């Protein structure tokens, strides 16, 4: 499965080695069944969610406030949050990223007030 079929066929037909410079990511080809790795979208999404968790935790707020803020930001991070803004509430598609970003800013700003409240002076 790691062979590049296009390279092989091009080379055979041209009777000269041709490397088209594209290769399959080997991490997508595990040695165990089912031999196909995790779907790209899910792995990328998992990394994005991990990054969001880390970023919210880095604010340094108490655990409960961090957990609540993390949940809300994660909820806003997916397509399932953005499409209803358009379908149900009529927001233009091009405005939705800014609206969500602004909402996230509000959540983080509120989270930072918790840090201030509990930080010894």
């Amino acid at each position, binding site marked *: 499965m790691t062979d590049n079929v296009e390279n092989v066929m091009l080379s055979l037909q041209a009777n000269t080695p041709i*490397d088209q410079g594209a*290769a*399959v990511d080997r991490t997508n080809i595990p040695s165990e*069944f089912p031999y196909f790795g995790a779907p*790209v*979208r899910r792995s990328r999404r998992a990394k994005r969610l991990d990054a969001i968790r880390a970023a919210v935790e880095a604010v340094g707020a108490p655990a409960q406030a961090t957990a609540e803020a993390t949940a809300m930001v994660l909820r806003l991070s997916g397509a*399932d949050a953005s499409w209803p803004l358009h379908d149900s509430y009529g927001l233009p598609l091009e405005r939705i990223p800014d609206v969500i970003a602004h909402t996230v800013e509000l959540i983080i700003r509120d989270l930072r007030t918790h840090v201030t409240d509990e930080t010894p002076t």
Partner: protein
Amino acid sequence: MGPGLLDLLLGVRLGVGEAVEPGRRNRRPIAREDPRLNLLDFYLFRGQPGTTVMAMTVNPNAGTKAPDTFHQEGLYAFRFDVNDDAHEEVTFKIRFGEAGHAEGEGPEGRPMQTLEVRRAAGSDAAAGTGGKVIASGTTGRIVAGDAGVRIFAGLAPDLFAANRTGAVAFRAALAAGKFAPDVFHDGANYFQNRNVTAIVMEVPTQSIGDPAATVRGWVTVSLCGHAPEVQVSRWGGGAPVPDHLALRPGFGGLVRFRRLQRPRYDGQRGERDALTAGQHSYRPGRGCR
């Protein structure tokens, strides 16, 4: 190497140039319109000791521009010629149920379909949905079946790699009378970060045929809402390129391309002719013959 062959080699998955009906991958209009029926790649290789692995992929760009499910009326089949007569003697058929979502699998819900695998031999291998059920379960997870059979069907990364930018430049250079393989060297993999839906089966090699024999395989996708079934997509068949995979005696790891020398698919010629005449629509819910 003419432009037609280049289209065949590079344009099929890349969408480069004019539509070409490839020799190794034969798709009817409905298969191009419905990604769930659009057969992309076929893999055949040795698995765990004593087993053979077969895989097919459909749904280019699954989950974004294409569904991440299988066609409810699709018949996805791995077909094997085990006695060199250019016809299938053993076929593994996979069918799927209505698409739904699994519960308790996270906020997005995991797409899920029921699936059923049948092993057909003799006359059942060539047509219809008949055969012995050897595994059943749901998509998105590994399903264990009878006697060491395993199947996974679901969303998976696209394991095809090609340099789209290079391919376009290569074709342009060729059209200008130049052979320019150097245009490939700086390009990225067009298929990186894309998903397909895959059907992967691992079966005891003995369930395909005599491990001492050379076995040839190809895959098809048919619609079973029609009566009789209509094959709409096939990997394998037709000159001039190597058109199916052959496993050498012993079913070793070496996967070879080899062209069948005799006509095949005779039993489906009538369907192919009908489809060529534009009758590629189908009536759902009629059931396969």
